[in-house]
């Protein structure tokens, strides 16, 4: 089985230097637990120093597709990854600031099943099982057959520590690649984002009324003073049941 791990450099939040992304490292560590032939891929224009962190943390050899900075990563990776059975990406690149779109685009391009936000992968018969992390601590188990693309949650696995020996032994193999140009992006200095607000024709008086009372303001809660503790406990349980907050 051929496994590909996709890595892309992140920016360190404090020093601002390029470093390894959390989720990509987790993908790398998860892939190393799986049986199969492992390849690590990167597409883009980052230099060796930006990828060094991955080598020092156990990537071995990184295949790097040389792209000009303004060309599309997807088509380059799509053609390089033909014939790979399982592709593991991070859930988001850049230490969480990416768009998280690449795994979805790749799955579509490769015609593979997509397993998003994976915490664990294991084989069962001829299929693969993934544990997916959902909000509020819910875990969902999904099953799919190869080929598949998984995006890996940063908490899935921990990569080995940074090692100079691994950095020295690691290699970066560069290949030329082509891709379509990306749409231009304009950068602007930081400020507060302005929310969309509906233009309102209500009189000033009504607006003031809305601010102090009435309007959409949340109705005051219910206060229960009567009864003994047992009755009050029943009130709380009824409330929880009424809003389906408990399952019994």
């Amino acid at each position: 089985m051929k496994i590909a791990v996709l890595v892309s450099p992140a920016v360190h939040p404090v020093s601002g230097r390029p470093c390894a992304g959390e989720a990509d490292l987790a993908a790398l560590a998860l892939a190393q637990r799986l049986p199969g032939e492992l390849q690590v891929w990167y597409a883009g224009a980052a230099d060796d120093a930006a990828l060094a962190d991955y080598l020092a943390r156990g990537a071995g050899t990184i295949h790097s597709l040389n792209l000009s900075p303004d060309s599309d990563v997807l088509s380059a990776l799509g053609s390089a990854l033909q014939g790979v059975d399982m592709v593991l990406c991070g859930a988001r690149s850049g230490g969480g600031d990416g768009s998280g779109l690449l795994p979805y685009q790749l799955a579509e391009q490769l015609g593979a099943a997509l397993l998003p936000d994976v915490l664990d992968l294991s084989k069962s018969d001829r299929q693969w099982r993934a544990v997916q992390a959902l909000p509020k601590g819910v875990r969902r188990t999904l099953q799919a057959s190869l080929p598949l693309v998984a995006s890996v949650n940063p908490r899935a696995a921990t990569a080995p520590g940074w090692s100079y020996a691994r950095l020295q032994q690691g290699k970066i193999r560069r290949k030329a690649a082509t891709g379509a140009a990306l749409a231009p992006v304009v950068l602007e200095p930081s400020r507060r984002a302005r929310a969309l607000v509906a233009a309102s024709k209500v009189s000033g008086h009504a607006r003031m009324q809305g601010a102090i009372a009435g309007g959409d303001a949340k109705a005051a809660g219910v206060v229960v003073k009567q009864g003994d503790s047992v009755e009050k406990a029943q009130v709380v349980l009824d409330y929880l049941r009424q809003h389906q907050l408990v399952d019994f």
Partner: protein
Amino acid sequence: MDFSTQAIPRIDPRRPWVLGPSGLKRIVLGDDSGSRDAAMLAHGPAHKPLRSNGPFNQRLLVVAHAERGQLDDAAREAIAAAAILAGKDGEVLALLYGMEDAAPEALAELAVDRALTVADPGYAPEQKLALLQQLLQQESPHTVLFADRGEDADLGRRLACRARLSVVTDVVEIAADGVRRRQPGAGFSLRERAQLLLLARGVAEAKLPFVGKGERLQSAALPAVSEQVQDLGSAASPASELALEEADLIVSAGNGVSNVPGFLALAEALGAAVGASRVAVDDGRFTRDKQVGATGKTVQASAYIALGISGAVQHLQGIKSCRHVIAVNLDAAAPMIKRADLSIIDDCQSFISAFEQLVRRERKEKQV
């Protein structure tokens, strides 16, 4: 001066008045119809005007998953953004999963003009995609909006890749010149407005001064498409193992809780995660990682049960996004009572033991 002989023009400060169509107060002299009591009117259900009566020649589509039959703030903001962007001749069309029971008034209040409500089938991305593609074909909306969190974020990304729509994720601002997302280290990046937008929190003010038409399309069934990926079921991990930020049900102890073992037994019986106020942490009853609040953790539970917590602002900051807050306190004037949806005025110790026994009994009955 002799007041009794002089005719002083006196004005009745509570003259009857009516509310004009523009929302202004109108006093009609010599007329005694209308209202005298301003306060009564202000507390009544505010009458909001219709956003636009049509005819519509373009539309925006909002897709959202409801949780327990209700939309959360992120989804409401997405609908509000659509309503604000729509303009006079634009219609707000919504595809809502898990809101089959919503009344038309509730839909109108959300500012939805037309809604397609579908029972949430759980995990079924291919079926949901097929329905969405049908909808795109029939209605051809010029923009599709999703909230960028949870199931909506996942479905939005899938749709963008499947239908080959241009997409911008994590949108923090929609302006006339394009959409902005945050660019670490560089402020904002400005892009053209794409066909599909995934919205971060705070893009729009969810409180709207108008309502939508609230029409409801016949509930549609999901097309029968086979799934690539099979769902083997999901499970909530035991609350005790869960990070506080992830928990859905939290019981939290403050200075008013002295019987800690009893409190922990209640948490276990309920299957709830354990939180604590700073005072309870500082004097060693709980570990630091349990602290909720400004200097502790910010939690997102659906239900937060605060036992013996006064509700200092630093504590309330941490529970801002909790949907249901239940407070138990001896003091009916504590700030927590104002925040809570349900408040019990009782001694914590006796309440905890009564509640624990009740929960254990009910659970056992459920199993039998």
